[in-house]
């Protein structure tokens, strides 16, 4: 390869990496009746998922909490928690289904319920810190939001059938 071509390829690669690491992050808050909703548009590399085992006792050893972490453009972490505890297998299935959506498209839109409140001391979120790999580990700054649904350009995932309302632009099952 000619030297100039190598430089162009290197520049393009650097540019691509740069775009990936910056990524997209937009959040918009809506209020319907007395309820707050957050519509978040974010690139896949700013999302992490986790199943947290809640070490309960006396027949409650099944309880796992699904958690999603989103890194804002100010390097603040939003924690989004599933509304209920599930068994480990169901929690892992949720992670796999969402991971598949994230791999298919580099950007997603998601609906989270509740208002954005800065958390105080240790209360209000399940985790203190979330690790985004090359984007670093950052503190969870807000109280947990509640997971409603997540969409890429092709499909949506999430069961919001129990709710009366969902985010504008999202389908209520």
């Amino acid at each position, binding site marked *: 390869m000619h030297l100039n071509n190598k430089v162009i390829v290197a520049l393009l690669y650097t540019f691509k990496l740069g775009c990936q690491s910056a990524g997209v992050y937009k959040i918009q808050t809506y209020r319907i009746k007395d309820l707050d909703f957050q519509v978040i548009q974010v690139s896949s590399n700013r999302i992490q998922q986790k199943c947290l085992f809640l070490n309960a006792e006396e027949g409650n050893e099944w309880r796992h909490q699904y958690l999603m972490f989103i890194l804002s453009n100010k390097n603040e972490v939003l924690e989004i928690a599933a509304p209920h505890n599930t068994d480990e297998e169901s929690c892992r299935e949720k992670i796999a289904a969402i991971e598949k959506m994230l791999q298919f498209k580099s950007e997603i839109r998601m609906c989270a319920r509740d208002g954005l409140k800065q958390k105080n001391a240790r209360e209000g979120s399940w985790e203190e810190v979330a690790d985004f790999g090359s984007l670093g580990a950052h503190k969870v700054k807000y109280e947990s939001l509640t997971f409603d649904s997540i969409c890429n350009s092709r499909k949506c995932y999430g069961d919001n059938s129990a709710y*009366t309302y969902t985010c504008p632009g999202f389908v209520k099952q």
Partner: protein
Amino acid sequence: MPRKKSNNIKASGKTTDVREHPLTVPVSKKNPTGKTIRDRHVRRLPGTDLDGDQIIDLFKKYNRKGLKYPTTKKLLEEYKNSDDYDEIIAVWIDYFSKKFIKLALDPNSVKALIASESSFIEDPKENKIAFGITQITKQTLKILQDPKGEVKDFIFKDIRQKDLKNPAIAIPLAIRWLYRKQETARSKLKREPNHEETILEYKGWLKGNSALRASGLKNYRKHYNALK
């Protein structure tokens, strides 16, 4: 002269000792006369157990006078079905508080528990271990039906796992279990538990670390406060 008891049969305050007696059975090769002898056995006294049909029947006929209902309309903006189970909650709290001669559970506490366990979804699909609107496990269902187990004072019978999809069955079972959890929480704390401590015991977190307790209660507390 004191009555002699057989080796394996013991009657308690909730059971009676039935002597060997003749029994009419369907005519078969084994029993061509339609008569057999039933061995000596223990029978539960009336009012110490309920099966599915009895649960439904008792709910229909229950005297509604003086019942305490959960607060209505406060969760409707969030959950469309949230007021649908108020009557079931009110009836069964009243039934068990009278049965156990105990201070009634707070109906809003039961409603907030259901919100936090299932969002009022009658048959949540996202769980393979706990079932129904109150998320009762197979293990808990077994305990609730064990005549020799920890809730032997009052048990359920012939309730199958699939019956837990019906809130008319799942809610009374959960309320009976909550009364039991109130007792176990009292024993662990060595004092009367408050409503949050009873819920923590139901979810298995009463003895968990403080961070788990605080995060785990967040969803319940949010709904309970909304109902106040």
